[in-house]
Every structure is written in structure tokens, then in C-alpha cells.
């Protein structure tokens, strides 16, 4: 009863925060709605950017995979997140400047502004949509997982529908400002919850015979695991900065200086990971029964905390899912309205974006009812697609005159190669197969560029 009281109270408070974020911005243009008119300072840009680290996927997926796979998983997962920030320290200010140069609201605007190719713009939109579609489903699956622990007698469809309505409500209230403001509350709660459960897990491990079993958590990595870890760390550290959500968050910043400064403290914000690791160790050592693979964190919280505190844990987890969901919607909506319907008025674009967001939420609710794959696996697929846009984005940032058709074909070829390798289960030396997709992508761009230049010279003579 008390757990439900805390849960409903905290979610209601978050809704009040979303309403508060509208203060002073009652009449919003599309630019204000989607990227806050580029008015955010270091703190809010930091909260938006780092929110991706404190997602429901990290909260549930990290301890679950650490408990199952041990060091092999922790190395690549933490490794890529740590390196994403110094990569962003140099790349993100360039993305912000390109956004200013091309008056961009969406990731695809950068490509349209630089290459002036509607075909490439559409390829980027479809690729981003393909990558973002699993994210909505992922958040709902996590929310369902968490709400199950509240033991309410409500159907999964009702739970996800209420979550979708909440996220849509936030978006309608004040666009990107709502998830930015709620992020502050969400991150404070997540820190409190993770440190609290991690500390209790640490104490419980000590009274349960100590750390002798830790080294046996998951198999010892072999050479192939190491190669996979190194290739994934490099790919995803770059992919994290190329992600379309990141571009949207960067466009909310006041200046390139704000963007760069916000990166410095981000690695320190990952200090919840040692505590999540301790939770995994606790579950491993005590052999706590798990109803589902991703229940490691919630099972530990249930075992270690008084019943009323589970409401706080559940609300923190659900908020982290809702914030990422709202952020994803705010990337997806303008992509459809602005880049697929460029000829319509600003007002119609705004309405179309909201309709697209509503349809995406409905689709994700339906998809979540049938999803069973592990969250971390889905995240890996996401980066495999995102990374294929890196060569094109590099051309935009450093103003390289690569042919737009080459960039578009590179993305198609790179993704085809990656998906084929994943489907056939090929483990080429243990490397992350997206590396071969990226190599095919760049080879395709080089060939098209060479052909383009040869044709140009030949035509002139």
C-alpha cells in the first residue's frame, strides 16, 4: 500500500515538473518545442546528454548481463560509455556548429544542409526510424518489468498505455523542456536508489561469506571475447556521438562552449555502475531466484529494501524509461514532419510531428506486448545501424565534398553487410560485425567518389 502511495506520488510530482517547465514558454514555435530554441545552459544540456547513460536499459540490463556474462560484458559496456564522452568533447561542438550553419532541428537537417540531396535526406530518415523503433519498445518492456514488482492487478496493455499517455502528455505540455526538467528529478532518484541498493548489497555480500565467488561471475573471457570488446568499445563510443538523439539534445544548447563544458563531468556521473555491479554480485552470491533474466536489480531491491521503498525504486525506473521515451519521440516526430513533409507550413509540420509521435507510441505499446529479447541485445543492434551514418556525418562536420549518392549507397551496403553477418551468425575473428559493415560502407563511398571524379574529369575533356 505504502509502496503504491510513493510510486503514484513521485510520478505525479514528475508530471508537475513537466507542467512547471512550460512556465515562460506557453506559446512555442516548432524550434522551441523540439530544441528549446537553443537556450539551454550547461546544466540542462548535461542532464539531457547524460540521461542516455541512466536509462532503464542500464538500470535493468547492466546488472542482469554482468551477473550472466561477468567481466566480458562489463568491459565493453562501460568501456564504450567512458570513451563516448572524450569523443563527444571534440565532436559534439562540431555537431552544434553544423546545426547552427544549417539551421537544423533534426539529425537529417544536417545532411540536407550539407549535401542538398533529398534522396540522402530520406535514406537518413528511414535509417534513423529503423534504429529508433526498437527504443520505444525497449522502454515499455522495461517499464512492464518494473511495474510487475508492484503486484498490481492490471494488464500489461493497460500499464504500457498509461505510460504512453504520460509520455505523450509531457510532450504536449512543453516539448523537449519536459524531459529535460524531469531528467533532473529522475537522475536524483536513480542515484539515490542505485547507491542505496548497491550499499545494502555490499553489506549483504560481506555477511554472506564475502567476495570469494565474484571472480567466478560469468565465464573467463577468451581472445575472441577480447576482440569483440575492443571493436565494440571503439564502434559504440563513436556511435554514441552519432546517435540522432544526441544531435537533438546538442541543438538545445546555447553555444559550442556549453556543449564542450557539459562533457567534462559526464564520466563521473557513471559512478552508479560500481553499485550496479555490486547488485549483480549480490544476486550471484546469494543465488536469488529471478522470475526473468532482467529482474536482477528489482529482485535485489525487493530482497534488501523495506516494502514501502520498492515504490521509490519502481518510480525511479519508470521515470527513466519515460524520459528516454519522450526524448526518442521528440527526435522521431520532427524527422517525419520536417524531413518527409518539407513543403508544408510550420504549423502543419508541428501537428504532423505530434500525430507521428502518437502513432509511434501506439506501435511501441503493441510491440512491447510481444517482445521477449534481452534489452542489451537490442541496444547492440541499435548501434550497428547508427554507426553506418558516421562517414556521412564526418563529411558534414569537416565539410568534405563526398558525393551524396555514395553516402546513401554506403549506408545501404553497410547495413546489408552487417545484417547478413548477424543473421548468418558469422563470428569473423570475434570482431563486432558492424566493423565489416562500416568497412563495406566506406569502400562503397570511396568507389562512388572515385567514379564521380573520373566522370567529372572525363566529361570536361
Amino acid at each position, binding site marked *: 500500500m505504502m509502496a503504491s502511495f510513493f510510486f503514484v506520488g513521485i510520478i505525479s510530482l514528475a508530471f508537475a515538473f513537466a507542467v512547471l517547465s512550460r512556465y515562460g514558454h506557453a506559446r512555442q514555435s516548432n524550434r522551441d518545442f523540439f530544441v528549446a530554441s537553443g537556450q539551454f545552459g550547461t546544466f540542462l544540456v548535461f542532464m539531457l546528454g547524460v540521461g542516455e547513460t541512466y536509462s532503464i536499459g542500464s538500470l535493468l540490463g547492466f546488472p542482469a548481463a554482468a551477473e550472466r556474462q561477468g567481466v566480458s560484458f562489463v568491459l565493453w559496456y562501460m568501456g564504450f560509455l*567512458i570513451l563516448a564522452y572524450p569523443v563527444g568533447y571534440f565532436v559534439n561542438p562540431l555537431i552544434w556548429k553544423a546545426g547552427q550553419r544549417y539551421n537544423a532541428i533534426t539529425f537529417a537537417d544536417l545532411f540536407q544542409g550539407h549535401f542538398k540531396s533529398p534522396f540522402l535526406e530520406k535514406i537518413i530518415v528511414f535509417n534513423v526510424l529503423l534504429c529508433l523503433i526498437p527504443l520505444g519498445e525497449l522502454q515499455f518492456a522495461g517499464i512492464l518489468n518494473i511495474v510487475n514488482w508492484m503486484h498490481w492487478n492490471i494488464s500489461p496493455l493497460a500499464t504500457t498505455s498509461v505510460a504512453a499517455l504520460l509520455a505523450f502528455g509531457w510532450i504536449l505540455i512543453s516539448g523537449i523542456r519536459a524531459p529535460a526538467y524531469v531528467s533532473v528529478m529522475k537522475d536524483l532518484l536513480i542515484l539515490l536508489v542505485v547507491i542505496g541498493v548497491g550499499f545494502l548489497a555490499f553489506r549483504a555480500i560481506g555477511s554472506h561469506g564475502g567476495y570469494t565467488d565474484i571472480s567466478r561471475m560469468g565465464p573467463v573471457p577468451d581472445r575472441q571475447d577480447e576482440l569483440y*570488446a575492443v571493436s565494440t568499445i571503439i564502434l559504440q563510443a563513436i556511435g554514441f556521438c552519432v546517435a540522432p538523439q544526441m544531435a537533438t539534445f546538442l541543438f538545445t544548447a546555447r553555444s559550442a562552449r556549453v556543449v564542450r563544458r557539459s562533457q567534462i563531468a559526464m564520466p563521473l556521473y557513471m559512478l552508479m555502475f560500481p553499485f550496479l555491479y555490486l547488485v549483480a554480485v549480490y544476486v550471484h552470491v546469494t543465488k536469488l531466484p529471478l522470475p526473468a533474466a532482467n529482474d536482477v536489480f528489482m529482485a535485489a531491491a525487493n530482497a534488501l529494501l523495506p516494502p514501502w521503498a520498492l515504490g521509490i525504486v519502481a518510480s525511479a525506473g519508470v521515470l527513466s524509461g519515460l524520459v528516454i521515451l519522450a526524448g526518442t519521440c521528440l527526435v522521431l516526430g520532427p524527422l517525419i514532419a520536417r524531413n518527409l513533409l518539407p513543403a508544408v507550413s510550420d504549423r502543419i509540420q508541428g501537428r504532423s510531428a505530434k500525430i507521428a509521435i502518437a502513432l509511434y507510441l501506439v506501435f511501441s505499446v503493441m510491440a512491447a506486448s510481444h517482445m521477449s529479447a534481452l534489452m542489451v541485445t537490442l541496444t547492440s543492434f541499435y548501434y550497428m545501424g547508427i554507426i553506418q551514418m558516421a562517414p556521412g556525418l564526418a563529411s558534414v562536420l569537416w565539410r568534405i565534398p563526398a558525393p551524396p549518392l555514395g553516402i546513401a549507397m554506403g549506408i545501404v551496403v553497410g547495413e546489408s553487410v552487417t545484417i547478413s553477418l548477424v543473421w548468418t551468425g558469422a563470428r569473423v575473428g570475434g570482431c563486432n560485425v558492424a566493423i565489416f559493415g562500416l568497412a563495406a560502407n566506406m569502400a562503397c563511398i570511396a568507389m562512388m567518389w572515385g567514379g564521380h571524379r573520373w566522370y567529372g574529369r572525363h566529361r570536361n575533356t
Partner: protein
Amino acid sequence: MRDSIRVLTALGIPFAAVVLSVPLLARSSVMIMGFPIAVAWLFFCLFLTSASMGIVWFVADRKRDDG
């Protein structure tokens, strides 16, 4: 501060610390404060990475007009 030194300090140091830890520490059975050494090292890298970027910011980038 020259650009190459900026990149080497803020990106090169964390990059070497994280990537080299995989072949050097992943299979070690040494434990530090209850954590496998590879995991403990990554936790240390959180501070190292922030410090690397912080140094470059305070020494060079803070004074740049474009950040």
C-alpha cells in the same frame, strides 16, 4: 596548447587506458577491493577521463571563443 596535445590528453589517454585494459587485464584473477582488476580499472578510468578533459578545458579550451 597545440591541437595534437589537446587531442592526445583528452582523448588519447582515456582511449589507451580503456582499450589496452582489455588484453592486459581481462583474464587476470587479481582482485582489488573485491572487484576483478579489469572492472576496478574501468572504475578508475571514470576519474581519469574526467580529469583528462578537465585539464584540457582549463589549460586551453576555456579561453577559446568557440569553446
